């Protein structure tokens, strides 16, 4: 569904993305993991066309990203920090988005608006909302048009445990609908129960992309958190496993 080929991006002196090749298929819940500043958000923003890569191509459902904006109707995006016009009221925001996208008859998905009880704050201006409430609004916006691809940047950061559970339950529900869900998070325990594939980025390079079973096997850890910690520390039971992954992933590309 999302095919990323040889993407590179440099911000002045910093190489944020370095020749990234990866293929995300539908039905996958992919965790994008990496230390701070490893390029996760830039990669996501490149998929959305918010950041223009220096070289390489991104195909979303076989449409070249960044040319025509229409492919974005297939994508629901929840940003890391949701920023909204100060004066706009919450209810107004939802009705505006509905109105702007009315030309395509989507069946609107208002599950999250209901379960987060956002209707109660419809009259509040966006600037009065707390960080967590903003996150809820962002989540509701991302899911509203039932997109085939969901991109969630740190979805549970800032949410209280209850809301976090509601959101995870929603992600689990969408997972059964054969969608592609991309999640970045540092709270690995949240990802544990959701994810099917793990992608690891470091200093702009894609170190590996593999399914969760293989990762557990390679690191000898069941918990995602411990497995990733092993990878980050560079200690692994089988020293050559990274080479192995690179071989398999390049085979995948040839396919």
């Amino acid at each position, binding site marked *: 569904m999302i095919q990323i080929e040889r993407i590179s991006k440099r911000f002045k002196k910093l190489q944020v993305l370095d020749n990234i090749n990866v293929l995300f298929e539908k039905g996958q819940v992919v965790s994008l993991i990496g230390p701070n500043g490893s390029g996760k958000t830039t990669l996501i923003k490149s998929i959305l066309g918010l950041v223009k890569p220096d070289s390489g191509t991104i195909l979303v459902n076989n449409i070249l990203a960044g040319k025509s904006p229409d492919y974005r109707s297939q994508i629901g995006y929840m940003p890391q920090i949701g920023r909204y016009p100060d004066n706009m009221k919450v209810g107004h925001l939802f009705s505006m*988005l509905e109105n702007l996208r009315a030309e395509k008859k989507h069946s609107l998905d208002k599950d999250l608006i209901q379960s987060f009880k956002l209707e109660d704050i419809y009259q509040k201006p966006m600037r009065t909302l707390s960080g967590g409430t903003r996150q809820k609004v962002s989540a509701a916006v991302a899911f509203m048009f039932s997109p085939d691809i969901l991109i969630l940047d740190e979805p549970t950061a800032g949410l209280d445990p209850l809301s976090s559970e509601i959101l995870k339950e929603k992600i689990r529900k969408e997972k059964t609908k054969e969608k592609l869900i991309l999640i970045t998070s540092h709270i690995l325990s949240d990802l544990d129960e959701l994810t099917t594939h793990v992608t690891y980025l470091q200093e702009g390079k894609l170190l590996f992309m593999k399914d969760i079973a293989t990762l557990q096997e390679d690191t000898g850890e069941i918990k995602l958190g411990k497995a990733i910690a092993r990878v980050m520390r560079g200690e692994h039971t089988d020293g050559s496993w990274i080479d192995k992954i690179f071989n398999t992933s390049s085979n995948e590309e040839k396919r």
Partner: protein
Amino acid sequence: MLKLSRYVLYDIVRSKIIIAYTLFLFLVSFSLFQLEENESKAILSLLNIILIVLPLVSIVFSTIHYYNSYEFIELMLSQPLSRKRILLSEFFGVAMSLSGAFFVGVGIPVLIFSFNSVGLSLLFTGVMLTIIFASLAFLASVLSRDKAKGIGVTLLLWFYFTLIYDGLVLMILFSFSDYPLEKIIPVLSALNPVDLGRIFIMLKMDVSALMGVTSAMYQDFFGSFIGVLFTVGVMALWAIIPLRFALLVFNKKDI
């Protein structure tokens, strides 16, 4: 396009600055017409205020609006809307509200007290200057990410067009007074929309007879039908070209 502009307009009207600006213009022009017995004297005073205040308000307001709408632009960019459409909607929203304010604030008094060719050319010049400076403001704003820098640049632009440029022209006229300068006068004035507007209106008034040789020089060119076409065309170019460049820059920008 208009759908999106409507939300921009709504946001601007709610901020109340535009209403204060309308009231200010209305009070100034209304009292000028009341104080001066001679309507063309009133128009002349009004002209001087318009040539200074209008560009300043237009360029500063548009710049601040752009930076304040950055969140809104970000949100819209993750929706299936093209960058061109988003920037143009912002521009039309700002340009329409500012020219609306001018039309109510100055237009109504002028139409009541001085409904003739001078009054109408004053209105035309005012609307064009508003649009031109909004367009320059958008170019300056997309070029810099920093708000303070953006506003600084727009203030410099305003200084240049209302004060510095006239000084430069005077200097040229003095240093090259031995040469026939009639030919380059239209070119020099075309390089500054404020000057162009001033000449365009002055020549419609009786006072132009008092300005001596220069006026005769101007009258030859700007008084003719071709001169009017020239003025309208050059002003349109001043509005379109900066906006065009702003779109080019905005299309390549990383958000």
